[in-house]
């Protein structure tokens, strides 16, 4: 065997071993073999079963929260500086209207705005010299939205991780300003619980109770003469007997979810499930001060603007508390999880949901493998019959091609989907084209009377350019599919591309080595089997 043939053969054998190792590792038993393959080849949702969700993060909520906070700060600041005003209210998410300020005090308002509200700017209202409009800067608005989106994604990721789902995917979806997320949950075929955990805002606030419980909103309003005291709000809750009631609470929370350092499911003094929470140092300090000043009053524990309970403050509490209510064990576990992961800065709605059951996934795998094996076998057989000796050549190249493809998936962590399996079959069908091109050209050269070695050389040389051409168009299609497609379609693009690239190696390099080996073993003038 010539040196060149030997070296090239070594390259091929080493590649083969690397591929095989990549797919099956070093198994000691047949069971371990199957396990290794299952571990190394990542299956897409359509083969493994699982849930695929696209959700919308309503970032406008965060903008509204920011302007709400700015408004209440503005009112406080105007009060402390003794600037009289008729009204200050939001006209929309990014605009605050201030009416009825005396002419000589406007400059003070301007200064206040510049110093305390740098993310806003003040502009006058046409036709009304006593009113001004505070407008949120567009850069600020964009920053608020982007921060809310990023924080929402992180919070959702924490919640999903806490649920113990294996290998979930949470990623941006859609174009830049769409604020959509895609979530993939392998193995989850009933997503009801996960969806509600993801979607729940889980905003915890502890607010002092100023009045109540009232049996209806109207009852509450009439007891205050139709107008609620400043900086209070009415929130719904449930009485001990289960009827809906309303509480009048401070608008500003004493302690919020941001001050939590931990939350655990536990049991209250009656043995019913509840959640124990602990506070951070700053939160604990604030909590201690408020409980000390308000002993005897009620403290509403508000979750997503609903009063869960309103216990009476017995004594100064600093760093812990409990949330009691009519909960099941599952509910306290989920609630603790949500509190630990943090509140969502914006609400979520679902745009798309797809759930593939495991039976369908297993079915698809079975069908896919069946089609693959049958197609592959048919092609192998055909090549043997039509091209005889060279057919063996092509078959070896094809087998190696397949091995490289599967190994590449295993090494690069590519995901195999059902269209991906179709891509494998297509690779085989289109890949064998390269061999056909070469063999047909060799036959042509032989017909023209060339010697076997010259025919082989001529065949490979002439065919190479065409092989590249045909591969480029298909790989270009695959690239477009990868760029614009999602999930299963991407899997198809990936296997097709890897397969065709590997095909370049096997049909040109490997086939040539085998031919050269054959030639070196023949005496001059002996016919080539093609």
């Amino acid at each position, binding site marked *: 065997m010539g040196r060149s043939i030997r070296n090239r053969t070594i390259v091929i054998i080493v590649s083969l071993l690397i591929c095989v190792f990549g797919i099956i590792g070093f198994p000691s038993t047949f069971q371990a073999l199957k396990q290794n393959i299952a571990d190394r080849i990542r299956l897409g949702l359509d083969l493994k079963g699982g849930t695929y969700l696209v959700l919308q993060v309503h970032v406008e909520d965060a903008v509204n929260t920011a302007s709400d906070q700015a408004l209440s700060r503005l009112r406080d600041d105007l009060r402390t500086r003794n600037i009289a005003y008729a009204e200050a209210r939001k006209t929309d998410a990014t605009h605050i209207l201030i009416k009825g300020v005396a002419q000589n005090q406007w400059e003070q308002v301007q200064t206040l705005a510049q110093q305390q509200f740098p993310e806003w700017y003040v502009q006058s209202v046409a036709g009304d010299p006593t009113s001004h409009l505070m407008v949120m800067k567009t850069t600020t608005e964009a920053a608020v939205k982007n921060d809310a989106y990023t924080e929402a994604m992180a919070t959702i990721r924490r919640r999903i991780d806490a649920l113990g789902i294996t290998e979930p995917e949470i990623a941006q979806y859609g174009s830049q300003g769409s604020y959509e997320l895609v979530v993939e949950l392998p193995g989850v075929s009933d997503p009801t619980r996960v969806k509600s955990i993801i979607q729940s805002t889980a905003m915890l606030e502890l607010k002092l109770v100023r009045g109540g419980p009232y049996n209806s909103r109207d009852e509450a309003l009439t007891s205050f003469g139709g107008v609620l005291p400043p900086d209070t709000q009415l929130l719904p809750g449930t009485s001990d007997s289960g009827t809906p009631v309303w509480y009048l609470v401070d608008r500003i929370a004493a302690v919020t979810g941001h001050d939590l350092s931990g939350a655990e499911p536990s049991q209250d003094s009656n043995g019913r499930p509840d959640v124990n929470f602990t506070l951070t140092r700053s939160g604990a300090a604030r909590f201690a001060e408020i409980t000390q000043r308000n002993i005897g009053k009620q403290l509403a524990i508000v979750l997503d603007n609903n009063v869960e309970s309103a216990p009476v403050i017995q004594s100064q509490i600093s760093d812990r508390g409990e949330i009691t209510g009519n909960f099941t064990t599952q509910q306290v576990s989920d609630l603790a999880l949500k509190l630990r992961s943090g509140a969502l800065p914006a609400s979520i709605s679902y745009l798309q949901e797809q759930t593939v059951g495991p039976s369908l996934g297993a079915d698809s795998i079975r*069908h896919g493998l069946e089609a693959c094996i*049958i197609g592959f076998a048919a*092609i192998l057989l055909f090549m043997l019959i039509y091209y005889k000796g060279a057919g063996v050549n092509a078959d070896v190249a094809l087998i190696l091609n397949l091995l490289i493809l599967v190994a590449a998936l295993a090494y690069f962590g590519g995901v195999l989907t059902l269209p991906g399996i179709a891509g494998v079959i297509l690779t085989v*069908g289109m890949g064998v084209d390269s061999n056909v091109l070469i063999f047909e050209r060799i036959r042509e050269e032989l017909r023209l009377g060339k010697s076997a070695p010259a025919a082989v050389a001529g065949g490979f040389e002439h065919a190479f350019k065409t092989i590249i051409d045909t591969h480029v168009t298909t790989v270009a299609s695959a690239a477009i599919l990868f760029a614009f497609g999602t999930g299963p379609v991407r899997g*198809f693009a990936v296997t097709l591309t890897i397969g065709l690239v590997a095909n370049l190696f096997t049909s040109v390099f490997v086939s040539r080595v085998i031919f050269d080996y054959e030639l070196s073993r023949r005496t001059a003038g002996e016919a080539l089997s093609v």
Partner: protein
Amino acid sequence: MEFFHNPQVDWMGKSKYFITLSVILLVVGVAAMIARGGPNYGIDFRGGTLVYVKFAQAPNLDAIRSQLDRENLPKATLQRYDAPSKHEIIIGLDLRTTSGAKALDAGKQAIVRALTHLYGRQSAGKADFNNSDAQMIADHLVADDPLQLAGKGNAVAQDTYQKLAQAMVAYRNEPPREGLVSNFDELSAVPGANSAVISDLKKSFYLSQFSVFNTEIVGPKVGATLRRQALYVVLAGLAAMLVYVWYRFELVFGVAAVIATFHDVLITLGMFSLLNREISLTVIAAFLTLIGYSMNDTIVTFDRIRENLRLNKRENFRDLVNRSINQVLSRTILTSGLTLIAVLALFLFGGEVIHGFSLVLVLGVIIGTYSSFAIASPLVLFWGDRAPAAALGGGKNSGGANAPLGRRPLREKSPRREPAGARR
């Protein structure tokens, strides 16, 4: 063994028949599309809800329809899925039915309620084993602890029950059960599921007679996004192909190739409509692959035409095209045949999920091969013939198919190889 030993077919002479055939197929296809009111868009593009359900026995479609009526879903569609012996149906709701509801999955929940009413058993507090995933089963087992593993520690218990639940789900999914267990005692075949486990399952679960094995819910916003995506994919594909062929060959070749490919897509789309198959995103992917493949085939023929042009400047163009096609015929038929074997395997054995995708490929391979010599080459010939007449400014009698090649404007795009005559 060889199929075609030196074929000498006059392809260009038969181009009239080919064009007639193509026109007939196009008309039939377009007529089918119009008759059906446009292409049959799948849920990816239309939006809506699809719930795929498998039943233990043949489902009573009328009973299901009237129960869905009671759930305020009178316009739900019921359609058989896969072979009749599998007892599988798809229940579909279109976007308008569910658009009013707040939650995306309101329609699906209503369908599941209806099915549970008919084929489940409303046992208070018990979960449906046939519609639970491994995690839910494991959670129940961990809570009840029938194997009394609590003493060995939490991690051991979790792990054991997880694996057991997964094994039971895998067992449930294997044929012949395929997702439906009719009796808990069947589960004793699963290693590790002893009598304690089984009686615990009987306490916590019931067995319904239906199993939801797939759901697809697409809201309006995502539907619009996917429609846009599909459009971009197809346009990008066609544009890329045009650019590539233009770069490699002359404009005439490029346009001819694109027209041929367009012809392939239209005919395949028409056939698809005729057979009333749904167009989903994976089907669009198949079309794009078809475009790539058809181009592929056409390029091989053009490659040979160009090579012969370089080598035989004196030859009559029409004869040259015929000879080129005959030279590549063996290879073309073989390649297409082999690819056809591959996609036929996929079509026949690949299962229902990928059926539309594989159908497009089967049709595409056949039509794509056909168009290379039936559409693309005649076009090149036609333009190649016309151009000398126009270049001379004269009428049709000054040029034509027999014009000496010196006046032919078709040339090698960028000759970078050694001069003609020195055949390597």
